């Protein structure tokens, strides 16, 4: 019973809406001029519905192209994505331009008036111009429809231009930044897969290491390894046993913008020269490897994540666990959590 009544109420509402829409549509056609029309300045032109439809089609095409931009943008791994993005955006602008061109050529009267221009601020002339502009639009019969079409095109284009701002950082899915291949017992290997032996690590130079049995492409894999005399190290007290034989390992990915920390500043005679430092060549973020990777210069906002190490009975370096902090550039909301060991690779 109550279901029937609800259905009836809905039907009633629908009927009311239909009547209102009908009145609106019919009313639009029979609009009486409120005042007597002044004498025309622009010759009355023929309305051109075909041109109007063309303009509408072009505007909707522009909107579709802009929507296409957003669609292409939302794919993560698309071949030639940049080219498609450029194509979509270019098409959107081209169609918008074409629409404006058709309006100018076929819908707006462009009367040429040759006369001496009086000095500026001439009320009569200004009124005339206002009238001229108003009458130039006389041929439009579906003004609102066209305005709506234009609004759609411009709105879609605006959305297409704003959407790339999402790339400023991952908002929702930041988990990959906390997953690294490092876990207790994983060996440090060089580019060729050869394990790093403690005895082979020399002071006054630096090495690049990767996680054994893991992709080198992974953000959390590459390390920069440096050796000091243990007396030179001033690590925080809870990291005392992270550096066997004075060997420290840090993530090679700069915490500022994610470049590879590729420079090692090594003083030959520390008494008169600047201290040892790991430096990122992109923006010169400078980290102190003797003090847990603290930032001593440059735009980086947090220390390089340190990897705790130990030496196995064969003398090879292995990880004691995961990094001391999240690896990679500092996105919004990435700084807080401690890294976790991701799914095994």
């Amino acid at each position, binding site marked *: 019973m109550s279901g029937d009544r609800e259905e009836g109420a809905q039907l009633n509402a629908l009927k009311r809406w239909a009547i209102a829409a009908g009145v609106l549509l019919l009313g639009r056609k029979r609009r009486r001029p409120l005042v007597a029309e002044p004498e025309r300045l622009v010759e009355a032109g023929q309305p051109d519905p075909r041109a109007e439809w063309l303009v509408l089609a072009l505007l909707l095409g522009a909107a579709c192209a802009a929507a296409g931009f957003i669609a292409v943008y939302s794919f993560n791994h698309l071949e030639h994505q940049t080219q498609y993005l450029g194509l979509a955006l270019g098409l959107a602008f081209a169609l918008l331009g074409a629409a404006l061109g058709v309006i100018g050529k076929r819908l707006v009267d462009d009367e040429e008036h040759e006369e001496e221009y009086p000095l500026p601020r001439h009320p009569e002339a200004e009124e005339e111009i206002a009238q001229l502009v108003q009458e130039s639009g006389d041929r439009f019969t579906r003004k609102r429809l066209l305005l709506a079409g234009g609004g759609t095109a411009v709105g879609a284009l605006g959305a297409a231009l704003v959407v790339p701002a999402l790339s400023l950082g991952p908002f929702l899915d930041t988990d990959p930044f906390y997953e690294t291949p490092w876990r207790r017992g994983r060996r440090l290997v060089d580019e060729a897969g050869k394990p790093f032996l403690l005895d082979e690590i020399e002071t*006054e*130079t630096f*090495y690049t290491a990767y996680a054994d049995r893991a992709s080198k492409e992974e953000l959390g894999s590459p390390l920069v390894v440096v050796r000091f005399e243990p007396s030179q190290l001033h690590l925080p007290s809870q990291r005392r046993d992270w550096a066997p034989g004075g060997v420290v390992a840090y993530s090679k990915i700069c915490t500022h913008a994610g470049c590879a920390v590729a*420079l090692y*500043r*090594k003083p*030959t005679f520390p*008494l008169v020269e600047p201290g040892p430092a790991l430096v990122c060549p992109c923006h*010169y973020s400078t980290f102190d490897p003797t003090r847990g990777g603290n930032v001593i*210069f440059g735009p980086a906002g947090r220390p390089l994540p340190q990897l705790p190490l130990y030496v196995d009975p064969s003398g090879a370096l292995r990880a004691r666990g995961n990094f001391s902090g999240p690896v990679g550039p500092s996105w919004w909301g990435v700084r807080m959590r401690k890294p976790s060991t991701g799914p095994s690779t």
Partner: protein
Amino acid sequence: MKKALATVAVALALPGAAGAQPGGGASVEQGKELYAEHCLSCHGPNGSGVTSTSHPTGALGLHGLGPPLKGVGAQAADFYLTTGYMPLQDPYDQPRHTQSPFNKQEIAALVAYVSSLGKGPPIPKPEPKRSEISRGLQLFTDHCAGCHQVVAEGGYVPNAVAPPLHQATAVQIAEAVRVGPYLMPKFSEGQISDDELNAIVAYVEWAKHPDDRGGWNLGRIGPVPEGLVTWLMAAVVLIGVCLAIGRRAHN
């Protein structure tokens, strides 16, 4: 104080005639005399160094101005002397590539003396001719370009300058890789093999005179800036011609 230091350094840098033996070979004895005259005040007697705890103090009564030289070998001594890094102009400033105040024979004598102080690596003999430049470019990009730039024009690290390598000889490049002067890390044979070092030297030698397409030195892409200036001038002339034609038509 810096001024005083510099004066002393310059005074020390002037090689005495007493130590030079005209025509003689590189003798350890001559090297020892030169060492006593020019190096001892910072590096200490017999290359023992002047560290923050050593007594007596080094030049100008300062402790800790010179690292010990025992065991650095002919390689490091030859590098620092032939590049003019030593004798140092200012102990608190980065040494620059300059003309050495010693002549070749004096340098050889000093190198012989320093290498006699303790067992150390000899002067390397790079053979860039036996290597490929393309491989050298790849290795240079991996190991050196971060600081020295891929065209070996030099660059910057915080608190120091990575010098351009255009003045460096093949031997000096090989030495620098093994020694790691100033703030540069040193690279052992495990990291860069002698064979790879040859390739790097070959590339740096090539980078001194790269293929140049002429024009202003803007990435060596050819006379592009000159072309732009020419276009600009041509455009001005063209406008002038247009104006002249227009005026004539008007009259």
